């Protein structure tokens, strides 16, 4: 006869209630671990999706994700010309906030080096990569835009042609991908008045130079809206992504590293920068919070199991007096602890399945969490039953004779 199950049957409502409460607590613990894993994954997914061997960024910066990086566009051609380089493409990254049908959208806008990079390596779940260098964008599904919808950016409509899943920044912003040229258009978008004023400043600067004074026609050129003023520099890019032929990584890196205007990182270093810099504090905070929650759960489980055992003291004393083998009584406590843990985890799993997709931050239940969480739960409830087991050991069977 299984005493643990008999006791549960007798106090079924209370036991299920306790398991439910424990389950909700475990849900929070698993959610914290999932958020932690999601944050780590989010932090690196952008870098990983680019599938570059080397990231060339502005000298002495940790760009483009950790801080701003402004790189002369000529770096792309310089890198592409190096022996051992298979492909070099520009990359831009900026965060914008736009109003769309009354809702504020925060978007991390990534510029892809069209036509070399049309976004084929992105985690597309619907739609297609970019097929033209202007007017198309790929967005993360979390933005809530459907395929074929239009988003107005810098006064021009951009049609959604592809949807990704879980392309988020470490800050939780959804990512949208356009060509680098479009990204720069959007970044440099300014009102007409600002353009007029800028042209006026160019004219003023020309008048202050011998060239301007000697060539008055340059002023007309600077103020003519059909012409681009020669004094305005080409817009910078945030990084240049380089793909290298096999076994050439070290050589190419050494050459690029010797350039005075850039810093170069490998893919692994870029990911480490993201984890170590951008999300380090958040990781530690969530990690510590997870540890505290896990300990709290363990203590609560311990007290629940101890109280369940304490309530049965007299019954256990009687059973001891009857000569019940010790393993039967210890088994009663342990089996109830395991049952409580299993039920609690089942509740946590079910609640998680329903609730986690609705969380504002991604809750990523990795394979490790999926295996370790139930295992850890069973270990915790086993350890938590120590107090109860000790109590069983200490029960004096003569208490049964005391009425």
């Amino acid at each position: 006869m299984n005493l643990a199950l008999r006791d549960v049957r007798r106090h079924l409502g209370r036991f299920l209630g306790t398991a439910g409460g424990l389950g909700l607590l475990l849900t929070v613990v698993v959610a914290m671990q999932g958020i932690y894993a999601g944050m780590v994954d989010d932090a690196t997914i952008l870098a990983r999706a680019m599938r570059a061997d080397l990231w060339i960024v502005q000298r002495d910066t940790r760009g483009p994700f950790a801080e701003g990086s402004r790189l002369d566009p000529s770096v792309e051609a310089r890198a592409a010309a190096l022996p051992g380089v298979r492909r070099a493409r520009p990359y831009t990254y900026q965060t914008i906030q736009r109003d769309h049908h009354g809702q504020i959208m925060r978007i991390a806008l990534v510029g892809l080096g069209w036509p070399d990079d049309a976004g084929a390596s992105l985690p597309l779940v619907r739609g297609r990569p970019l097929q033209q260098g202007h007017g198309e964008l790929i967005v993360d599904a979390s933005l809530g835009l459907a395929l074929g919808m239009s988003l107005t950016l810098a006064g021009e409509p951009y049609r959604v042609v592809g949807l990704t899943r879980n392309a988020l920044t470490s800050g939780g912003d959804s990512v949208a991908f356009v060509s680098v040229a479009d990204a720069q258009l959007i970044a440099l978008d300014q009102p007409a008045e600002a353009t007029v004023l800028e042209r006026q400043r160019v004219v003023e600067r020309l008048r202050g130079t011998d060239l301007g004074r000697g060539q008055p026609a340059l002023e007309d050129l600077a103020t003519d809206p059909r012409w681009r003023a020669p004094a305005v520099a080409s817009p910078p890019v945030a990084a240049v992504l380089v793909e290298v032929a096999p076994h050439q990584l070290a050589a190419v890196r050494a050459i690029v590293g010797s350039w005075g205007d850039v810093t170069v990182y490998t893919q692994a270093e870029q990911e480490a920068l993201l984890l170590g810099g951008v999300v380090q504090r958040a990781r530690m905070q969530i990690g510590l919070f997870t540890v505290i929650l896990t300990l709290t759960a363990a203590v609560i489980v311990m007290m629940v199991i101890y109280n369940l055992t304490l309530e049965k003291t007299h019954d256990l004393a009687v059973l001891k007096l009857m000569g019940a083998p010790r393993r039967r009584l210890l088994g009663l406590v342990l089996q109830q602890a395991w049952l409580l843990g299993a039920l609690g985890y089942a509740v946590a799993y079910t609640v998680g399945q329903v609730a986690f997709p609705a969380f504002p931050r991604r809750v990523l239940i990795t394979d490790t969490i999926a295996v370790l969480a139930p295992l850890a739960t069973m270990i915790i409830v086993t350890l938590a039953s120590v107090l109860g087991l000790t109590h069983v050991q200490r029960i004096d069977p003569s208490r049964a004779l005391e009425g």
Partner: protein
Amino acid sequence: MDPAVRSIDLRKTYGVGSAAVTALDGVSFALAPGTVAALLGPSGSGKSTLIKALGFVSPADAGEVYFAGRLVVKDGAALADLASLRRRHLGFVFQKANLTSFLTARENVEIACEFGGKPDGRRRARALLEYLDVAGRERAYPEMLSGGEQQRVAIARALANEPSLILADEPTAALDSVRSRTVMELFRKVAHERGAAVLVVTHDHRALDVFDHLYEMEDGRLRPYHPAAATAAAPPPA
């Protein structure tokens, strides 16, 4: 035939120094199989201490306890597996029925069969409940049973392992006189029909005729009890 249980010169003291209380003061006692004995005496006279010592629950400080002719406790030291002895050969009935609260009436008896290593526990439990006239309540939990029904189930549980010694500590204290007598008669029936030795601690003098032997304890000493002598010694009614 060896007595079911025999004690020689049992001594037990609680506390030390001036606060010391002698609970057992050289108690020698034997109970033959198939007999039922009553143990009388005022509160604090040592009855429960003797029951605990004879039931291998709390050994005496000094003295010997033999079970079925075998020395099992000597001067407080166990010479055998006492839990196993209790499981296989002893039955207990308490002042309160002390049934396991989360088991039904039948399961309370069945679990004792299991502990006692008796096969086919469910069938045996049903038979015992029928024997004690509570078969109709086998699915009821203890809290659903009346006091008398609980005690019957408790006696059935005590019989589950076919014990050679049943120790009952004030089993009728919570019952009215009619039910008390019924329970005492059950003990006699068990002793005479099943050959068990039964020792019942009681304050109830109304059913003493049921017992084969009467003992009383006072200040830790055990002596035979004679109802007539006790009545004669009692002060005349006012």
